[in-house]
């Protein structure tokens, strides 16, 4: 019951948010870039149900459009991280020995290195842009997936179906892609759903440091950062993007929990 509840609930929240942001141009009551300085910080009213920001822009429209950026960053960063993680972890697990040892030490270095510093350094070197944010988040995002995949591959390598495939004359590449990865993919999906929540939060952290999405583009993290000086006089600037982030992160976590219960074969029940 929990399994299906979690998947329905988490999946439902995420689907709704995705749909709302995809349909942002249709749903937005206003142009998210149109300013009216004289109306800065004005409170919610009929035409602007979430109120306006410091530059008089419609917050509802910016939350909807900002969701596109935030979800894109989260999705792209996790995709790149997963891709890197699966490849590197797969190699480590499959080849084993010196390769495994070397790759694991590299992951140790990345785990021990303060991730935010690496992100700041990268954002300083690269020009700040959406794709560079994705790169910055992926540079240390892959590590967790690599370790996960390696552990899975190590465990699976000894299992009968792999030995059987080898005996049947399958090439290593085929075994890696066909048999091992197929079995590795479900825990990775679970991790990825939760990791995407982390990436969305990390983007807001970069925005806090002024290194996130560039104005005038909206993103939830950037909106929170823009509103943080007005927390006391105009809380609506941060409440709505804050709720959007919180909902997304919760939805993804609950979905991930449900998927874990569904997909994890080691969990007895």
């Amino acid at each position, binding site marked *: 019951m929990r399994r299906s509840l979690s998947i329905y609930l988490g999946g439902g929240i995420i689907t709704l948010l995705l749909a709302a942001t995809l349909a942002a141009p249709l749903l937005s009551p206003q142009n998210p870039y149109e300013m009216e300085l004289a109306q800065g910080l004005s409170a919610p009213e009929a035409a602007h149900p979430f109120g306006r920001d410091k530059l008089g822009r419609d917050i509802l429209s910016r939350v909807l459009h900002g969701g596109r950026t935030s979800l894109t960053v989260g999705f792209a960063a996790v995709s790149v991280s997963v891709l890197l993680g699966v490849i590197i972890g797969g190699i480590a697990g499959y080849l084993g020995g010196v390769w495994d040892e070397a790759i694991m030490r590299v992951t140790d270095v990345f785990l021990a290195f303060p991730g935010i510093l690496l992100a700041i350094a990268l954002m300083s070197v690269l020009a*700040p842009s959406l794709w560079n944010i994705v790169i910055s988040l992926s540079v240390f995002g892959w590590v967790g997936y690599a370790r996960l995949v390696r552990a899975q591959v190590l465990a699976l390598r000894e299992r009968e179906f792999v030995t059987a495939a080898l005996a049947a004359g399958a090439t290593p590449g085929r075994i890696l892609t066909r048999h091992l990865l197929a079995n590795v993919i479900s825990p990775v999906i679970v991790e990825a759903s939760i990791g995407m929540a982390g990436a969305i939060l990390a983007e807001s952290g970069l925005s806090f440091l002024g290194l996130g999405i*560039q104005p*005038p583009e909206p993103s939830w993290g950037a909106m929170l950062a823009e509103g943080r000086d007005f*927390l006391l006089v105009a809380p609506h600037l941060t409440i709505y993007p804050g709720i959007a982030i919180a909902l997304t992160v919760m939805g993804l976590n609950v979905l991930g929990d449900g998927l874990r219960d569904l997909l994890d074969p080691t969990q007895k029940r």
Partner: protein
Amino acid sequence: MSPARRYAQVRNKSLALVALMLAYAALSACGEKGATKGDTIVVGIGTNPTQLDPRLSQDAISSKVQRFIFSRLISKDHEGRIVLELAEKWERPTPLVHRFELRRGVRFHNGEALTASDVKYTFESIRDPSLASPKAAGLKELARIETPTPHSVVFHLTEPSASFAESLMVGILPESAREAGSRFAEKPIGTGPFQFVEFAPDVRIALKAFPGHFAGKPAYESLVFRILPEETIRVLELESGGVDFLQNAFSPDILPRFIQNKRLKIRKRLGTNFTYIGFNLEDPILSKLEVRRAIAHAIDRRPIVRFIHKGLVQEADSLLPPDHWAHIKGLPSYAHRPALAMKLLDEAGYPDPDGPGPEPRFTLVYKTSQNELGRRIATVFGHQLARVGIQMKIRSYEWGTFFGDIRNGNFQLYSLTWVGISDPDIYRYIFHSRFMPPAGLNRGRYKNARVDALLEEAHQSAEPEIRARAYGETQRILGRELPYINLWHSMNVAVFDKRISGYRVYPDADFISLARATLSPAAGDR
């Protein structure tokens, strides 16, 4: 180990942990609370001072805190006029000689008397390359220092310098600092109204009144600077009494909230900060005067002044504030005229490919630091420039990267603020062609032989009329040639507890007037 034993261990451990936490809570609860609320002023500041040694720091907040600990030979008063502090008399017999008589009976916090050799030591150590002092550059023209008597100091210059006085405004250290070496900053000693108690980095700097101060002991016991990096927290601390005093460290939108607060007082004064947009004059597009003029006319400063700064800035037509002695009247102010801007761009050879359509005439990149207010204002500029067909992309960088790019000429447009403009000799560093980075501040690479000559003349002259005339003409040329778009001068706003009286806002946003403020006991205070 049996499960039961392990459980017992775990439980014992958690009990021990709880006990430890309680003990810690009890200990910290009865920690020092030094002075009572009645005789302490707590100032909230946003950044951690990097250094308490006045020779080594160059950040604004360090020098503001240092002023309470260290007095200077000369300094500036609340009108920005130069006044004597440790000096009793200041003569300039020739343009190459500054002669000071020291005030008698001045003592350092450690009891030593101030003598001419302390002054000599301070300035000579600044020039010592091994100290790597950022203030050494200001003493370029200094040839040697003489101390004919224990209370007189004579500075000999290699060439006349109108801005040399500015460079003398450094806190004086005791000569005994030499022995302390690099440890001096850990327990700084000066002749200022407050003496050092404690510096807990990123937490606070605590000072206590110096009874032996030459102008008399301050009227209250202790002065504490709390370092609070987040604006919302500074405001909440001020409102809840954790902080008594804030200056400029809040956004203008919060001011109405302070006005309503019966416990708080507000004081404002036009300051010496100047914000501008800088052009890269070696950029093929921006090297054209018509383009720069078009941008100046396309930008509308009024709504930004009114709605973003809430009137706490004043539109600028020059680097110098309007009440500055060298500021001249009648400079061009570049009113908001989008139609004229479009016409100028057409004339410059950048017609709009599709009129009001989305295709821009050209695209510019505007660099700014990660500061949220700067990004906000940039967004408005971008919007305004789009209306005349210029696409402006905003790139906000981490501070060190941004600054490095500006220094290296790696920019098209950028915006920054000059802090504490006072001596107009700064024009030389900013616009003289000899002062392009890395030698100076001419980041936009402005070149004009007439301006070079005028600035050279003004620098070498001690005659106020000659200087005023030279700077006047400079301002007129710069107003015409637009290496900068002048944006605004900001107001300094201080908000503080009503118990504090006698505080004066300084043009350079110095806090030093707190040293002479008085503190009335709060109702219900011990």
